[in-house]
């Protein structure tokens, strides 16, 4: 929960969070970046196979949107979900071990990049299906309401998912039943190669909230404080039993959709422009401007993140491979397995 300071001239995040939480948030943003750079590097060196969807450039959205959540609160995530995992407190070593397909990974090597989950921390999992997590988040919110747990669910999805039928069905039901869920759209401008201009009839996806009689707001998703201000208000509203909200974080992925992307649908200039709006230095500057960290602190936080990633890669490398005769394990829960 935000611990509010009463000075409205300060940016929201500075008012709402302790220096300790803010330093932790900066560290998490570095961890997401370094995790994905490490994953990319490991892929290039042939240490991991398959594909991956990198969220480099989107770290303010993933970390900012999870600031107000406790371990009891839930998230559902997307194929571009590493940042959400880190935001919800995932162990980087188990994340890397999953990438490496090891038994010590979050999914014992069965899920890979697209299915990292940590139910013990309220992370119900990334999802390989665009829009797949939307109704599941509504179900988690239904449980919270029926069981009276007070938990809020943050449902991450991308601009692409906003054109799935599941988006309409999920938002409508959440509103009809007034459920404690926050829909966080990370609009990075492209569903694979197709821009929102070419795919989406409204300019801002948040405008669609009106169709579900819920608040909708569009914010600069690379501005950590703006993201927390919008998402925290929506979380508070959900927690108070006032129902769902839609927050649209405008952001940009620097890398391609996945490993197959040749970047033919966007210009170098556009990519460079967004790289100039890197959310991590912006966050570091915000904290320095308000005397929460010094330049040396930032360097130390970055170095700490680098070390955590190096240790995580080492942990993953040392991990055991799954046993081949256990290929069908975990299809069913043991007591009931046929």
């Amino acid at each position, binding site marked *: 929960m935000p611990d509010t300071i009463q000075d409205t001239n300060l940016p929201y995040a500075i008012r709402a969070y302790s220096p300790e939480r803010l330093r932790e948030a900066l560290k998490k943003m570095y961890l997401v970046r370094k995790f994905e750079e490490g994953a990319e590097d490991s892929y290039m060196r042939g240490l991991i196979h398959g594909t991956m969807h990198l969220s480099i450039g989107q770290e303010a959205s993933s970390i900012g949107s999870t600031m107000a959540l406790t371990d009891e609160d839930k998230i559902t995530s997307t194929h571009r979900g590493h940042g959400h995992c880190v935001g919800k407190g995932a162990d980087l070593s188990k994340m890397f071990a999953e990438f490496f397909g090891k038994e010590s990974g*979050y*999914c014992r090597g*069965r899920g890979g990049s697209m299915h990292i989950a940590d139910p013990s921390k309220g992370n119900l999992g990334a999802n390989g299906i665009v829009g*797949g997590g*939307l*109704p599941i*988040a*509504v179900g988690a919110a*239904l*449980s919270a309401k029926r069981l009276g747990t007070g938990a809020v669910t943050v449902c991450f999805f991308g601009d692409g998912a906003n054109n799935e039928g599941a988006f309409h069905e999920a938002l409508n039901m959440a509103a009809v039943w007034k459920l404690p869920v926050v829909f966080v759209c990370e609009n990075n401008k492209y569903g694979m190669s197709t821009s929102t201009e070419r795919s989406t009839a409204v300019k801002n996806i948040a405008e669609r909230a009106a169709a579900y009689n819920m608040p909708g707001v569009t914010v600069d998703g690379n501005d950590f404080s703006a993201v927390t201000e919008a998402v925290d208000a929506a979380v508070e509203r959900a927690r108070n039993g006032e129902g769902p909200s839609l927050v649209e974080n405008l952001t940009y992925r620097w890398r391609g959709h996945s490993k197959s992307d040749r970047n033919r649908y966007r210009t170098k200039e556009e990519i460079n422009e967004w790289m100039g709006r890197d959310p991590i230095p912006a966050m570091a500057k915000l904290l320095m401007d308000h005397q929460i960290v010094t330049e040396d602190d930032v360097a130390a936080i970055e170095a700490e993140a680098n070390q955590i990633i190096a240790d995580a890669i080492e942990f993953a490398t040392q991990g055991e491979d799954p046993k081949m005769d256990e290929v069908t394990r975990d299809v069913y829960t043991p007591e009931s397995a046929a």
Partner: protein
Amino acid sequence: MNAHSKPDLRELSYAEAIREAMDIALTNDPSVILMGEDIGVYGGAFQVTGDLVDKHGTDRVMDTPISELGGAGVAVGAALTGLKPIFEFQFSDFAALAMEQIVNQAAKVRYMLGGSVSVPLVMRFPAGSGTGAAAQHSQSIEAWLGHVPGLKVVQPSTPEDAKGLLLAALEDPDPVMIFEHKILYKMKGHVPEGHYTTPIGKAAIRRDGKDVSIVATSLMVHKAMQAAEQLEADGIDAEVIDLRTVRPMDRDTVLSSVRKTGRMICVYEGVKTLGVGAEISAMVAESDAFDYLDAPIIRLGGAECPIPYNPELEKAAVPQMPDILAAARDVVKGRV
């Protein structure tokens, strides 16, 4: 129709038996909720939920919008986080709208997450032809879902099993899909009082016989029983097996029967090709029971077409009692 019951025992219809199971579950377990289209005051398209909303309230007997994909997904999310939803599809055909959540989410999430979660979800599908509702309200899609690891698929054929399998499904930590035949909803039969379960994955021998094994599912079990009675007059002693569970299939019961009779007919309403009967046949062909066969296996399945409207065409599109009779006579008399 009659479920071969003893007259002195309490009888309920198949629909009433399902309702009683849901009532027991709602009463005994606060985490159970019912979800579906028009299952509240309307009582469900086939009046299966009936008046349960009056007793348990709209929070626990929840009408959903007409949103099969979203509704199924809400049920998956609820099952992942502490509730035990029983999700009713209005017609099994509408599952096509929700296949994403059933197949990609409910069935796979436990595996994808390395066993860290379970999805205690029950889905009910009113299935089958015979109501004149034509192609989009009549098909039998149990083989589609039976093809998906992570799901369990059952097809009760009697009121007793309809109740017992539903209560077993609720105790199961994994997603269980229950295909209920619409024509059976009004069928009466003995139903024990109170809570009991019918094991998932166990077939039932409905009639002992030595000449031919008729392995049937759902409504076809009753057609097979009628055929068996007539075959008796011909001196043919048919064994009728009610498969009850499509996934996981009861291999032992089927193979033991075939070893005894040396002949097998599979009768199922779903389209014949790549259907439940194909799996049963392959199961026999791959086992030692194959050596006991005295005649080729016969599959009687649905015709290779959608279910038509015209009542005679509709009958022609699925196996009927005379088809079973003829097949049994042929296979026993060596005419195959």
